[in-house]
């Protein structure tokens, strides 16, 4: 990261967005003092609490009650503050019945709810949040999001928020910073920055790389959407170059949503290996993307001789949009938190 310069005023809520590897997490780590910057400085006025993960310091052997105290104090709450909010935290989490049970007996959902509840009652002047809201059940997420929104609006708290989820950014922040390759691309109103971010992804359906190592590597990946819902196909054309004598390798493409959730991996099914010996070759393949709900998706390209060994892995190099619902002709109440549509064709009443 270099040449990053911005101010956040008290009471402002600011979203930090950018593609994977743009430097968002590094920025948050520096802001929360986990790793020091190699140069430059940051001036903070006020108590900072950072949530790079929920449930930091949770211990499986301790009870729910004990973990609330442990986690709260690690996040920077004083014991008196935890005492004050204890009942509200427990209420909010809905796990009061299991308060004296060791955490290891909690389901992962319950652990998350308890962790979120502690976080929701933090009272710092500045709150730094990483993509922590991307986990847990959707309903509870919304509850937390609202609570945090309340906090920043009514109590004048400053919030710095990293997310791939543009809806969350819109809900929580007024301004946003778009990062790319460790630099600030734009720092403006949310309404101005989000389209720019989405455009950047959408516009790259063709990716080129001038130079790389000698091992087999991608020099170009481009995609075209073919056919119509519900039977969409993604045609991927890619060029592999190798400067050394290699035997065989196979390729795979990972598809993730622009909120960072992995949707799936496309792998070849019959003869998986291609010859990658000492040349530059272009291949075209077709991936069936049946059941995808509307949204923006990113494709990563991988090549290696074996699943555990990588020659080249290019993350989120190309992207595409899906506009239509996979169930056309139907007014579909679209809810992407349910994931993609897996249709059933037959229903027999027996």
């Amino acid at each position, binding site marked *: 990261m270099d040449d990053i310069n911005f101010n956040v005023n008290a009471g402002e809520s600011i979203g930090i967005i950018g593609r994977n590897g743009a430097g968002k997490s590094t920025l948050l*780590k*520096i*802001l*929360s*003092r*986990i*790793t*020091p*910057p*190699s*140069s*430059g*400085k*940051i*001036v*903070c*006025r*006020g*108590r900072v609490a*950072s949530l*790079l*993960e929920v449930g*930091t*310091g949770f*211990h499986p*052997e*301790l009870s729910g009650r*004990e973990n609330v*105290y*442990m986690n709260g*104090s*690690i*996040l*920077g709450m*004083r*014991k008196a503050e935890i005492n004050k909010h204890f009942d509200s935290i427990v209420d909010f989490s809905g796990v009061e019945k299991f308060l004296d049970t*060791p955490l290891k007996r909690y389901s992962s959902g319950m652990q998350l709810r308890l962790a979120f509840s502690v976080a929701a009652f933090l009272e710092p*002047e500045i709150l730094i949040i990483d993509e922590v809201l991307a986990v847990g059940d959707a309903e509870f997420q919304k509850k937390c999001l609202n609570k945090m929104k309340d906090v920043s609006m009514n109590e004048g708290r400053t919030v710095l928020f990293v997310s791939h989820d543009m809806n969350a950014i819109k809900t929580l922040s007024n301004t946003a910073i778009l990062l790319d390759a460790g630099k600030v691309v734009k720092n403006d109103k949310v309404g101005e920055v989000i389209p720019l971010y989405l455009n950047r992804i959408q516009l790259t359906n063709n990716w080129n790389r001038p130079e790389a190592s000698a091992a087999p590597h991608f020099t170009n990946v481009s995609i075209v959407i073919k056919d119509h819902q519900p039977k969409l196909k993604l045609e991927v054309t890619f060029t592999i170059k190798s400067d050394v004598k290699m035997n065989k390798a196979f390729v795979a493409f990972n598809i993730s949503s622009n909120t960072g959730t992995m949707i799936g991996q496309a792998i070849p099914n019959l003869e998986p290996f291609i010859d990658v010996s000492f040349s530059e070759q272009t291949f075209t393949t077709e991936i069936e993307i049946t059941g995808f709900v509307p949204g923006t998706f990113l494709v990563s390209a991988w090549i290696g001789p074996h699943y555990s060994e990588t020659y080249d892995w290019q993350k989120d190099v190309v992207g595409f949009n899906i506009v239509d619902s996979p169930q056309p002709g139907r007014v579909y109440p679209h809810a992407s938190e349910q994931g993609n549509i897996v249709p059933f064709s037959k229903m027999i009443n027996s």
Partner: protein
Amino acid sequence: MTEYEIKAKNKFSFGLAELIQYRELFYFFTWRDVKVKYKQAALGILWAILQPLIMMLMFTLIFSKALKVSSDGIPYPVFAISGLLIWNIFSNGLMNSANSMVNNANIIKKIYFPRLIIPMSAILTALVDFLFALTIYVAILIYYHQGVDFVKLFIYLPLSILITVVTTFGLGSFLAALNVKYRDFQYLLPFMIQFLLFANPVLYSAKAFTNPVINTIMKVNPIASAIQLCRSVFTGQEVDWQGVAIGSIVAVVLFFIGIYTFRKTESYFADLA
């Protein structure tokens, strides 16, 4: 409103103000470690008493009954427990603190607080065990009708504990810092501790040595001084104040070397751990 700057670190500081600001974390880390340590055991916290008791019985059997080791004119159990009290603060504290940064790596990577709290709390955990072990100490003194000079007890015992804690903290934070980068120390440490148990006058009298080189080493060694000081409450032997003074200086030097190493390297713990 607190205002502070985050920038590349260049000059060394102890960070005392910050440690005071985060003082509650000392309590929470210590409390967690004590709780977790005895949580799954049926006898629970009773082990904090049983461990030194069993150690003492074991060593009495071997060193006093079988090997007939001299115990400076006091019953061997009294002799052993007064050494073990100090020794256990050192060995448990060193073990806890040396591994503390690695054990808490997941927390270090996700949240900021003064890192020194972790190895310090690890030693506080050993001190909590010490408080429980004190009951055995008192019980043995009563059992053997050991005459106690209370003035000496209330001066010598705290002083010997202080020397031990300062030494342990220095070595512990030094090893904690190194352990983050080189896990080798995790494997070396048990051998080191075992060696030190036999190299210190825990189970035998320091008078056993006649070699001047070894006597010099004993004088420089703060743990040996602390044990002899703690023990002289009962043996009535003259305290080697010169040895205590040298031991204390060495303890303070170790303390600063430990903190210096730790503070120098702590910025990179999150990347390495």
